[in-house]
């Protein structure tokens, strides 16, 4: 008994054809849907008018350094992709990862004045996991214990 008789070869070839056809179909489908698979637009794309105008969309980038201004629950900040930055206003509770110079995704719409009114703010994680740098007090604590 051989491992690859004519019967096995026929079954294998059939399987290979199905797999190749399927991968090709999936590839073409994903390419066609590429735009819709984008979770967010960058500020530059929004400035170029690539984002939808009549309904809500998401914009992602970094929170511009020094741009956060808090006024009670309302917060003003700028989202930047290092080329263009767009001012955002949001009222509500911010996620733990929301910080200057960190990734953020805002959901809402552009007002005619060029201000983005966000209904939701999502913070993006940068895939880094590090312990905090030890403060002098912590070092002292560690030496004591």
């Amino acid at each position, binding site marked *: 008994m051989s491992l690859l008789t004519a019967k096995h070869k026929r079954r294998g070839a059939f399987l290979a054809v199905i797999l190749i056809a399927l991968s090709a179909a999936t590839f073409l489908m994903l390419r066609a849907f590429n735009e819709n698979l984008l979770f967010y637009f960058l500020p530059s794309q929004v400035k170029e008018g690539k984002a939808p105008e009549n309904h809500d969309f998401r914009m992602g980038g970094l929170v511009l350094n020094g741009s956060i201004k808090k006024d009670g629950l309302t917060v003003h900040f700028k989202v930047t992709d290092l080329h263009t930055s767009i001012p955002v206003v949001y009222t509500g509770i911010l996620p733990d990862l929301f910080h200057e110079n960190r990734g953020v995704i805002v959901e809402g719409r552009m007002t005619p004045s060029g201000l983005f009114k966000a209904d939701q703010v999502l913070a993006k994680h940068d895939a880094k996991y590090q312990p905090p740098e030890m403060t002098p007090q*912590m070092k002292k*604590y*560690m030496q004591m*214990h």
Partner: protein
Amino acid sequence: MVNFPHGFWNMGGFWMYVWPAYAVAFVVMALNVAAAYWPDKDDRNGSGE
């Protein structure tokens, strides 16, 4: 403990999110052990579900 300035059981967000996450994983994994070792007598192919 240096990692938990407020004590292990009071660590921020532990009861809210970390603990439930581990509880779900533990229960699901325990159910799989039960299904593998005490399979349903009536099931047709004896694999447990």
